[in-house]
């Protein structure tokens, strides 16, 4: 039986390689395993909006200065995708997406994402001196596959020093079935997955509590179809993580995308 036949013959749940962790008496599992909300999210949710600036050119976006605590970018479109991308980022420790919450401003719900000061977009960085190590680009590719991101161009990632930030995930989670990437997809095939990334994926699926928590968070904001597709993609990445490499060209060309969007 081939690699992909094995994957799609399994049930919808990712395989758990070991026994589920036994709960210790008296300890709230949710408190131990949920990475959200964090303190930065609390600021975004509750911080007083000192000043707002509607942004030129951008549809439905506002810069919001938060009293004594930085700023955020608020947008009223694709808010569930933006929040879901952040939740996934936090659960798997990619550390790419700035903190993002859903917050109602003047009666309109939107996503509010922490503003990264002094950052450059990909378009503003010299290609020859692209400061990211290869493994950061592969990490981004893994993340983009996991969230089914159909749009990663030079305008929607940021660089600050050696740190990369992934922004603008409106076209994710099945919203668009194509591919737009600043990296060439073919350059990612069969690349080694960074050790931290693969360990985080394998550790996550080994903790049923974490799987259930994430599923619960995603179900609050995404459709059943989107959540199911997410876990199918995760299952494929578990296979990649065990091998230590992103999909080979043969595997990639064998992917049946319908159930993965």
């Amino acid at each position, binding site marked *: 039986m081939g690699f992909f036949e094995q994957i799609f013959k399994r049930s919808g749940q990712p395989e758990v390689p070991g026994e589920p962790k036994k709960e210790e008496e008296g300890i709230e599992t949710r408190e131990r395993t949920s990475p959200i909300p964090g303190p930065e999210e609390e600021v975004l949710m509750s911080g007083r909006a000192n000043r707002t600036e509607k942004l030129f050119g951008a549809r439905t976006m506002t810069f919001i200065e938060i009293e004594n605590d930085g700023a955020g970018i608020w947008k009223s479109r694709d808010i569930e995708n933006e929040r879901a991308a952040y939740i996934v980022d936090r659960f798997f420790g990619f550390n790419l997406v700035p903190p993002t919450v859903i917050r109602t401003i003047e009666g309109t719900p939107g996503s509010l994402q922490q503003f990264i000061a002094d950052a450059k977009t990909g378009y503003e960085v010299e290609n020859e001196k692209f400061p990211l190590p290869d493994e950061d680009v592969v990490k981004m590719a893994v993340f983009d596959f996991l969230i089914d991101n159909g749009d990663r161009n030079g305008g*929607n990632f*940021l660089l600050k020093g050696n740190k990369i930030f992934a922004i603008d995930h409106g076209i994710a989670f099945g919203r668009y079935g194509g591919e737009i990437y600043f990296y060439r997809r073919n350059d990612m095939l069969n690349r080694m997955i960074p050790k931290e990334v693969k360990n985080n994926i394998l550790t996550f699926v080994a903790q049923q509590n974490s799987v259930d928590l994430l599923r619960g968070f995603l179900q609050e904001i995404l459709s059943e179809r989107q959540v199911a597709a997410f876990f199918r993609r995760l299952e494929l990445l578990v296979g990649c993580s065990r091998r230590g490499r992103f999909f080979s060209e043969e595997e990639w060309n064998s992917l049946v995308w319908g159930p993965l969007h």
Partner: protein
Amino acid sequence: MSMTHVNIYKLQNDGSQEILAVCRLGGDNTTVVCESSNNVFIQNLAKEGIRDYSDSERKQLFLTDGRKFLEQLKFNFNSGYLNASDIIEE
């Protein structure tokens, strides 16, 4: 040079926006010329192009695609950090 153009704004730390680049439709209406004090941005834009979000395959557009390139700038630059205006006809 045509006065038909698009402004591309860069969000500053204080929430203000500065014009990073101006892309104008050439007099022949077939080519776009972008100007900016940031040469890296202009070089990347010329080399990498942008995407046509009205096309199902999201094909690439370049300066030589003229008005179509201008039309699609606002769909490519709408992250908040870089935002493109609608086409401005003057």
